[in-house]
């Protein structure tokens, strides 16, 4: 029985055994500038619809664009971080198409003259292997507005009674980063795709050019996938899955498209070049509009804007001011902290690099910092299903906690109670220790009283110890700890007990 050309999926492992996947990924990042790409409208998330607009971003008759210099600087920063060449002169073009959320019915974008081109980045896969992705170009453009379809099912345009358009997002600066065909990923293509987008996100944040929050759509990926029989064959027909906006979805999209396209090819069919949509809930892609060569954007150079000509001096100044890139930083920190590869990977995956760094800066040893963030705190975060970074405790507080232990003020067991207090909003660790009365009892006088009481209660054990058998001394120590409600230093108690018995 042959499968229908599009209906079934081929098991992923079988698909990648028979076909070589090639990826192409276009990542859009919304820049965190104060104002829009071509006008002074504020860029801010979550404003009332159509309040962050000017005649320019509404496309009113007569309005003219002016390029946002900060957006250009951010684009250059991104280009440099991706090891690209920066154009000496580049232009904007008009991409003409009619759609209600495009106020001018053309998008001002860069077409044949991107600001940055021919670069690469190395991404680290889960097992530590480095995979190099080559960058075709990074170019500047403006975002479109947002349509809301009312009256249909699930906000879809089909069946909607009417649509509302919000132009707050229209004109927000974007940089689009386009890869060259990503070949050689083989069965790891989904992982490569995810790691690439994640690496870019980390770079955007390190560069300070965007909050890069996937859930707000600050970063969106269009994922192209094609299959070919083997790595020497010409590239197959690709599909483009639009606006995938989580790392996990990027990975799942690639995986699904490989399985789906393999099924089409296995059945003797041909993959249709088209735009597809990703459905998070069902984990599948469905066809959007058919993308043919007939699509004609009638690009031409934007006559309302003069060319962008960043000076070499300015570019070098920006280059000199670039922060350390996330990958290099991780390598440096791993060296400084002396973590094993696996330990560092866990820390990175847990999003704890900055937390540990700050904790170490607060005076804690790297091992101590890791113990807290990857141990007790990770456990609590998992239990409450929250991100580590959002917990109600600061690296400074963890550093303080660790210092209180080192000073002998509290022990590990008490420290957990102190942490309870900190997380409950009772203040810094020292304050919690005071208010909850959690100091270790280090006053020998007070301890001796408890010890003498315990010794007196169990004379038989005292005899055994005196006879040279130290085994049973734990019972005495336990009794003392119980009497002091755990606030004694067990090591000191042991010393004192032995001293007392020896007298």
């Amino acid at each position: 029985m042959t499968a229908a050309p599009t209906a079934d999926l081929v098991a992923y492992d079988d698909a990648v055994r028979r076909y070589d996947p090639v990826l192409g990924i276009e990542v859009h990042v919304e820049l965190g500038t104060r104002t829009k790409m071509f006008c002074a409208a504020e860029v801010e998330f979550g404003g009332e619809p159509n309040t962050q607009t000017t005649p320019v971003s509404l496309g009113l008759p007569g309005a003219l664009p002016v390029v946002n210099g900060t957006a250009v600087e951010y684009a250059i920063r991104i280009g440099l971080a991706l090891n690209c060449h920066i154009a000496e002169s580049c232009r904007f073009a008009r991409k003409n198409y009619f759609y209600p959320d495009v106020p001018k019915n053309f998008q001002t974008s860069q077409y044949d003259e991107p600001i940055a081109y021919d670069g690469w980045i190395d991404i680290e896969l889960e097992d530590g292997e480095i995979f190099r992705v080559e960058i075709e170009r990074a170019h500047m453009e403006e975002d479109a507005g947002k349509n809301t379809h009312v009256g249909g099912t699930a906000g879809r345009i089909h069946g909607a009674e009417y649509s509302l358009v919000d132009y707050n997002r229209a004109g927000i600066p974007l940089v689009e980063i386009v890869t060259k065909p990503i070949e050689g990923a083989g069965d790891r293509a989904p992982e490569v795709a995810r790691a690439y987008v994640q690496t870019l996100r980390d770079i955007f944040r390190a560069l300070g050019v965007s909050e890069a929050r996937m859930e707000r759509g600050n970063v969106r990926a269009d994922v192209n996938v094609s299959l070919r029989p083997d790595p020497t064959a010409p590239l197959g027909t690709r599909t483009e899955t639009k606006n995938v906006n989580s790392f996990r979805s990027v990975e799942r999209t690639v995986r699904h498209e490989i399985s789906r396209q393999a099924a089409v090819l296995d059945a003797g069919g041909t993959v249709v070049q088209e735009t597809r949509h990703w459905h998070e809930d069902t984990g599948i892609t469905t066809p959007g509009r058919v993308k043919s060569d007939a699509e004609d954007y009638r690009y031409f150079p934007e006559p309302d804007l003069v060319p962008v000509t960043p000076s070499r001096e300015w570019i070098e100044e920006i280059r000199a001011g670039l922060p350390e890139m996330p990958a290099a930083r991780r390598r440096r920190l791993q060296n400084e902290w002396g973590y094993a590869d696996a330990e560092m990977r866990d820390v990175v995956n847990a999003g704890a690099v900055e937390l540990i760094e700050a904790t170490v800066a607060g005076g804690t040893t790297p091992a101590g910092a890791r113990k807290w963030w990857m141990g007790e705190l990770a456990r609590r975060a998992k239990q409450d299903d929250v991100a580590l970074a959002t917990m109600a405790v600061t690296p400074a507080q963890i550093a303080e906690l660790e210092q209180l232990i080192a000073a002998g003020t509290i022990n590990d067991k008490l420290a957990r109670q102190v942490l309870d207090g900190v997380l409950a909003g009772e203040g810094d660790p020292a304050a919690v220790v005071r208010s909850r009365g959690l100091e270790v009892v280090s006053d020998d006088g007070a301890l001796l009283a408890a010890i003498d009481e315990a010794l007196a209660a169990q004379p038989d054990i005292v005899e055994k110890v005196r006879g040279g058998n130290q085994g049973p001394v734990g019972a005495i120590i336990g009794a003392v700890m119980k009497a002091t409600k755990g606030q004694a230093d067990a090591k000191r108690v042991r010393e004192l007990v032995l001293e007392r018995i020896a007298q």
Partner: protein
Amino acid sequence: MTSDITRLSASELAAAIADGTVSSVEATRAHLDRIAEVDGDLNAFLHVSADEALTTAAGVDSRRASGEELGPLAGVPIAVKDVVVTQGLPTTAGSKILEGWVPPYDATLVERIKAAGLPILGKTNMDEFAMGSSTEHSAYGNTKNPWDLERIPGGSGGGSAAAVAGLEAPLAIGTDTGGSIRQPGAVTGTVGVKPTYGGVSRYGLIAMASSLDQAGPVTRTVLDAALLHELIGGHDPRDSTSIAEPIPALVAAARQGATGDLRGLRVGVVKELSGEGYQEGVSARFTESLDALRALGAEIVEVSCPHFVYALDAYYLIMPAEASSNLAKFDGMRFGLRVEPAEGPVTAERVMAATRGAGFGDEVKRRVILGTYALSAGYYDAYYGSAQKVRTLIQRDFAAAFAQADVLVSPTAPTTAFKFGEKLDDPLAMYLNDVATIPANLAGVPGMSVPNGLSDGLPVGFQILAPAKADDRMYRVGAALEAALEKTWGGPLLAQAPELKTTELTR
């Protein structure tokens, strides 16, 4: 005094307002009265903003009374072409698709006019979206030429030119994409100036072709044009193509020119813009004007611009290409006309199509289709790309010509005003009317049309072109020619206009 006010030039009126002989309110009311009297015939105005103008005028009068130092044109009323957006005043660009639209913001040049205290009398008629050479393509009816009501006032700025020639306004704003200030100036006997591209902000001009559009003055004298040009010109950070340096001293250049000394000046006659195809009277007036310039000490040289013969072809690819994109925003979604399809589903795409079908006139549709085709994949290189190469060659022609001459001259238009309908059914014949003005737009250089006499009782214009950013040169030459010719006429050319003969112009 009131009846004489409308016969004053702007500089004369400004002086009268400054010394208190005439109040701005009187001046404004006189022009509003004149509009009420003659605009039923002329149809130069699409909207008259009487209340706003009088309020501005009263403000200027009280500021003057309190001893405030005011600008050189304070209190002098002005008309603004309807392609320029005006906050609170309807702006249609002569199109049905914008009927009733009231912009929420001012063009930069309007802000400057308001800041300088010029009462805005209203918005003037024009070919729809500035596409045309006769104002017959306005969706709101023809504007008539004050010299002969059966004839066109030129286009696209026929309304502004007719308002100034018809004494309805001493000053007007025009826009010039291929000659829309200069050609109407020529056929109505007014002064029209297209400044250097980037010399006057385009912010707030409803764009036809962004790389060619330029706003400028329409006036009765060269000095008036210089005063208005200095007022509206200069850098604007909201227009990326605006020149980031001060405009040259135009008023000083005009005053210097009026003294009549042009010794040492080389005037280049563009071989390709004279001779064949020009109406006999137009050529005769041109020759006489050259003689006048020679008499003032100028050296006349012939220059050749061999690629000018391709200018019209290049223009009619670049202009529609840019217009097809600039006019895409008129879709019934955010402002202006919205038409739902007569039957069938109401989708965004069908509303856009129905709105554009109903809202745009034939000439606009013709150019949008032409431009869409010129930009389309597979034809871009052959049409738009080639046209841009021709544009570069024309710029080189200008550079070579300006190496031989300080200014270049030609007749502004090949003919005097033609009759309504004469060329309406023949778009190519209409396009030919702009053959002499278009090269300046393609190269971004400034151009001016100065009245230089009559042919069969109709005005003829003399075009002066200067290198980019050397607008002052053409003001100098224009003022010199104007002064010389007025001596021979015994007064301004407009005084010879038939319907104006009874009311002698005082100068």
